[in-house]
């Protein structure tokens, strides 16, 4: 109820930002947070769930993987044969796109804005350009030794 007097403009963009910070802290959006957020944003559970489910970045399940790998599948990377590289990485990690194990979550992304140095991948928030099989193996070794 305390939110009713608050001007609506204060909440502009806030749900995105709040969910992001919850996920950064907890790795996902837990059910308990959803109920809390419904109250503070004056939204029904259905509206809140619909919001979270719409945006690809948010996850409702805990993230058990240590590293998040995102392979760019957009045109410039396609032009630089990311298809072959994707197959290589899938085999190497024994994961399909969208799958995870305790070490890695393998994911796709559609453009990282790094097109001049395609193919690009993002690992734990950092972008790597000019990606190739050898370079990926090197990074993988470093990650496994962390």
């Amino acid at each position, binding site marked *: 109820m305390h939110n009713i007097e608050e001007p609506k403009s204060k909440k502009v963009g806030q749900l995105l930002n709040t969910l992001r910070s919850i996920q950064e802290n907890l790795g996902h959006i837990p059910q308990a947070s959803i109920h809390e957020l419904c109250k503070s944003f004056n939204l029904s559970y259905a509206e809140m769930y619909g919001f979270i489910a*719409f945006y690809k970045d948010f996850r409702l399940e805990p993230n058990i993987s240590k590293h998040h790998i995102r392979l760019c599948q957009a*045109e410039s990377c396609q032009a630089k044969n990311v298809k072959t590289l994707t197959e290589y990485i899938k085999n190497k990690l024994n994961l399909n796109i969208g799958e995870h194990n305790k070490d890695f979550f393998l994911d796709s992304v559609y453009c990282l804005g790094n*097109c*001049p*140095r395609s193919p*690009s991948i993002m690992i734990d928030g950092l972008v790597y350009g000019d990606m190739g099989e050898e370079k990926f193996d090197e990074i993988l070794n470093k990650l496994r030794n962390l």
Partner: protein
Amino acid sequence: MNVYISLDSTAQSVGSLEIYNKLKAQNKPQLNIKKYSTLGLMWLEPLLELEHNNQRWAFRNVNEKNIDDILQNPQNSKNYLGNIEDQPYLKNQHRVIFRHLGKNDPTNIEDYIRLGGFLALKNSLSQSPQSIIDKIKKADIRGRGGAFFPAYIKWQTVLNESSDTKYVICNADEGDSGSFADRLIIENDPFSLIEAMIIAGIAVGAKEGIIYLRSEYTNAKNILQKAIDVAYKKNYLGKNESYCFDLKLAIGAGAYVCGEETALIESLENKRGLVRPRPPVPAISGLLDKPTLLSNVLSFIDIVRLLEGSRDMHTTPIQLSGACKQCGLFEVSNDITIEELISEFGVTPVDDVKAVQVGGPLGAFIPKEKFYLKLNNDELSKEGFILGHASVVVFDKHINMKDILLNLIDFYIHESCGKCTPCRIGQTRLKEILTDLPNNAQSNLNLLYDLLETMKEASLCALGGLTHLSVLSALKYFSGDFNIGELK
């Protein structure tokens, strides 16, 4: 000796941060290491410049192994380029929007002021809002988001609305693949964007601004937030004696469709990013039903350049990528042809190229026989193509266009917001039909043309409305890759 290196995310993606850290760790008193904006010459990154007796020596593709050699024996290094300003790929550009690249520390406000920053703001404060908008009208500035809509109409509409609350929103949700110009501005020249937003606020009567940035741009987010904090500290943002303008950053969450202006507004209102039917247009009823000036990053920058007096001509910042030897940002006059771009700036033989896609994922695939076309919207649209954000992705002769198109349609399916039926169902049907080719080719194609016509006419936004460009151009010019032979 000054040492300049960029920490732009493309430079970092090929190792510039490691070099910066290594140089810092060496702790040599004779080296003054500065993190500077990138020049956008991305194939040279990590690019390092040494300033010695007022001369700047550039070195390409520096890495942790060759850096010591370069410092010890600069002019004998095989990475030595000479003065970067003399290189044809930079000398032959005409930089207006990107005039600060390579000349500043992105978050250093003194650097920005030294380059003429806040002059446009000062000029704006000494004239009426109407006079600012008249200047924009006279210069015929067009939006850079892809629609080339006259900018002054939006500004005038918002100014004319009588409302106690108005908003200015910058669309920095640069989701179109192949585009990276917005990111370059935000990471390398963030104060230009901040200044533009303040001027827009003053001109249309808005006291609040929001920049909606895509989440994939983590480096851009950190730099922009830092620049906003500095601008508040120096009283350019917030309340001062001349004006009051607050600016905040909202970060998207991986939905491409939020780059569409009404979906972006829905997203800011804490809703799913569903496209709204128009009218009303955002300039009349936008964020929280208030008049809202919503433009893309480069459209705002263009206006700052106009008001500071540095916009001496209309340029096109082309973003070149894909199978090309030299990829990066080439800001040039708008009469450059596709062939000139690829051979002169990209240094790639046109004979090795099969197609280019211009204007992002919704742009057409343009075949080699059309490379005489100039990269401006008037000329491209005569042929049924678009310039969009002026991104050009090059595909070499080994590429199969059906593979590229099917991958693209997966993207459309995934990113359709689902609000309108033609796009939600049409994209999936499109994939089914194309996958089934070359079976029942003629009947499948008739179905496909019907479907694309419906999507074009009945979709709420460009995602469904422009799908026909990529599909029809691929089928028309590269029919060999679809094994459909000669058809009507």
